């Protein structure tokens, strides 16, 4: 009867700590798919978790990038619409004046919407501002020149600069525009060399 040959080897008393481990392992609920199935399930779960994490990270990064791109495009679209509003507005007057700064010939285009009291000024081909200086635009009114905006042309930037701004409510009827060179930060009234003076 070879069934009993299994008792031929000397018995070996297992390490005491093995008992609880073996019994716990034996009586735990059987995983679906068996021993290897459980392993595969665990591996699949880990892979899914890793993929999920990577997908989540990628999704968040993509959403953030797309949101930033959307905001940038929305801002650009708003600017384009604003510009178009100037061009197409029935109360908009357009003036262009050639300017020479430091021997360089450029030009300034002014879109002045009297209905909305908004201006769009576009400078092109002007010499960069000297250090500590800026170009300052003035509203010409019956009460004199009022501060409009300052535009500092930087050597490193494009030679084209556009700026939109409102005509303040305390500024009366605007009859023209002017530009002078003033200290960086602007002046309360024109003191520097006048670049142009234009009636609208």
């Amino acid at each position, binding site marked *: 009867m070879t069934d009993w040959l299994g008792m031929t080897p000397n*018995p070996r008393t297992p390490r005491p700590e093995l008992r609880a481990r073996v019994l716990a392992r034996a009586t735990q609920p059987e995983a679906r798919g068996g021993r290897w199935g459980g392993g595969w399930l665990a591996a699949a779960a880990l892979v899914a978790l890793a993929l999920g994490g990577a997908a989540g990270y990628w999704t968040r990064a993509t959403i953030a990038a797309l949101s930033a791109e959307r905001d940038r495009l929305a801002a650009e679209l708003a600017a384009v619409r604003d510009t178009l509003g100037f061009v197409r507005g029935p109360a908009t007057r357009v003036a262009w004046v050639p300017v020479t700064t430091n021997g360089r010939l450029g030009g300034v285009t002014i879109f002045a919407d009297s209905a909305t009291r908004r201006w769009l000024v576009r400078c092109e081909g002007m010499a960069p501002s000297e250090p500590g200086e800026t170009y300052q635009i003035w509203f010409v009114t019956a009460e004199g020149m009022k501060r409009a905006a300052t535009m500092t042309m930087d050597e490193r930037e494009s030679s084209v600069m556009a700026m939109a701004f409102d005509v303040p409510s305390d500024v009366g009827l605007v009859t023209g525009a002017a530009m002078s060179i003033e200290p960086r930060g602007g002046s309360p009234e024109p003191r520097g060399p006048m670049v142009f003076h234009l009636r609208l």
Partner: protein
Amino acid sequence: MTQPKRLSQEDERTLIRRLKVRDESALAELYDALAPWVLGLASRILQDDAEAEEVLGDVFVQVWRRIDQHEASRGPLVPWVLSIARNRALDALRRRRRWWRKAERWGAAQRLEDDPADDSVPGWPVHREVHAALAALPEEQRRVVLLAYFEGLTHSEIARRTGQPLGTVKTRLRIAHGKLAEALKHVKDWLR
């Protein structure tokens, strides 16, 4: 020779019935009685403590999950558990494919088997009876039995290993099994 202390067949049936109704204390009792023999058998086959302990765990997992497959009519519980242990250990041995190295260690272990062991372990008297039955076999028959049982070799593999004709191997195995069955026919009950 000391006769093994045995439980009656009714006691064994009770234990099996408790296992089948998922009585965990019954599994613990079975472990206490059989774990040394399962570990001894696995260690003998694998010659590797860590792998033998792994087999020990596998065996009791399988016993717990497949106790419904045990048929009392086909034999007592102990040989059934030991056959699971042997199959598990041989599976591990085959997976490793380190036959020759293991054979060398097995040869060394043969010498170590003569060392005295803890005879207080339950089932020790049966162990002695099996040894006596094996020792009563002629050397050439004992060798083919051990190669088949502990190394899981097929008849052809035993023939190649021993340099004997295949027919001779089969004949020796048949005769040896007959003698063992006769010598151990009284060992039928659960033991403790």
